[in-house]
């Protein structure tokens, strides 16, 4: 890495070599850095190794190609993981109606909010899949993805009453979009 250029080469155990100079775009679905045995060893060296290897993964994913979807963030290698409080803050500014929320530090379980079902909706760049057909909702979903810097974004909506955002994820189940989502991804990566 120099001021002018960033290059990444990865040599795999079987001898294959990946060079960032040959890569135009990356579909990034990395959740955790690949940890070596050192990261599984004795504390505190194991914690140090995990921190180092996560930091390394973040840097090489960032420099791997001109287009990385989703680009890595310090709070998530496939895009920032956010709490419901944070997603709702962004969503309100994007014009997306949100569900009611009460979170209390005296009740730590209230901080955990992840629906136990695949995401209902999907944003891929400027296209949406499975987002309810209500005035302004799809445009607001696209704006949320843009504001969150996660062009690939999964959304959950309330099932009762008018659709309101319940949660979002930078690592969505893509199946809700079917083949059309694959085409949208292809367009996004080629942009």
């Amino acid at each position: 890495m120099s001021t002018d250029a960033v290059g990444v080469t990865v040599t795999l155990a079987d001898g294959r070599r990946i060079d960032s100079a040959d890569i135009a775009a990356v579909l990034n679905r990395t959740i955790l850095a690949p940890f070596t045995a050192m990261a599984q060893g004795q504390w505190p060296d194991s914690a140090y190794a995990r921190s180092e290897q996560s930091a390394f993964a973040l840097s090489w994913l960032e420099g791997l190609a001109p287009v990385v979807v989703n680009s890595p963030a310090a709070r998530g290698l496939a895009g920032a993981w956010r709490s419901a409080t944070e997603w709702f803050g962004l969503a309100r500014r994007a014009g997306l109606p949100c569900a009611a929320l009460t979170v209390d530090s005296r009740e730590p379980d209230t901080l955990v909010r992840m629906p136990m079902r695949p995401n209902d909706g999907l944003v891929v760049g400027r296209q949406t899949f499975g987002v309810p057909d209500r005035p302004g909702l799809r445009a607001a979903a696209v704006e949320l993805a843009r504001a969150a810097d996660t062009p690939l974004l999964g959304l959950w909506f309330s099932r009762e009453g008018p659709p309101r955002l319940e949660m979002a994820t930078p690592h969505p189940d893509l199946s809700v979009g079917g083949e059309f989502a694959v085409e949208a991804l292809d367009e996004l990566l080629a942009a």
Partner: protein
Amino acid sequence: MILLFGIPSETPLAMVAAALDERGEKYVLINQRDVHGNRIRVSSDGDRLGGELYTGELRLYLNEVDGVYLRPMDDRRLPELAGEREQSALRRRTIAFHELLVQWTEAAEITVINRYSRMGSNFSKPYQAQLITRAGLATPDTLVSNDPAAVLAFREQHGELIFKSISGERSIVKKLGADDLGRLGRIRHCPVQFQAWVPGQDIRVHTIGGKCFATAINSAGVDYRYAALRDGAAAELTATTLPDEIAQRCLALSDALGLEFAGIDLRRDPDGRYVCFEVNPSPAFSYYESHTGQPIAAAVAARLAGMGPARSSARRPASAGAAHDPGDTVAA
């Protein structure tokens, strides 16, 4: 209303509190160590974000808060939790308090110095370096690798090298010496960051409210922060003025990283070229202010009070204008 969060006796926090007193601003200092008394409750009806924060005998309404200065230590290491089991109720509530306070500062449309989401780039130095170069500042030639042969080739190309951690852990800079070459094979277990050695003078730049406060450091040590400890001679710090172009780039970098307040580490090489090593998002500015008299705490207080531009929309370097722990922190 302004909130300060951390340990009241911690020097940077105490200096900002004193600066707010000086200005006559109303603020509440939330003692991080009051693990039994602190509580936060955030609520939303779907349209508006609200809630309450309890600390000591006080109850604050979150929608009355205009600015927050976050300066906590790693909450897992609070002395009050030393004897607590991993999943004890007190430990879980304390962690939840820290998490929810951070979550609220992320969502609330107020001045926050600094939002945790914006501090994150410091977690990975080579990641942050890519953001630094995009903002127009030069960085040292760098190799991160677990391949000893690649390191030797890099050394052949650049001559003297330093090495340091990739993350913020154990972040001490050392020159790569003959002893280190003998154990280079160990990097196969965990990649290490190597950089071309850049000679010259260290300069720490604090950016806040559209201003730059620059401090020149003279030190014989490889890493001036630890000069007294490792090399036996303390660093000398003096206020200095940056060339306007470099000051503008520092402000642009803080903007690009989304930081209201940043500590930027530069070095001016013998040819007058400025190289940026890293940006600290929770700078221990007191070390620099106490040596130079630069009014950094006052600038932080002013920004919390709503004075000055958000981050750096006004571009003007401040003119060149006592010892504490020099360690910057990335609060956990």
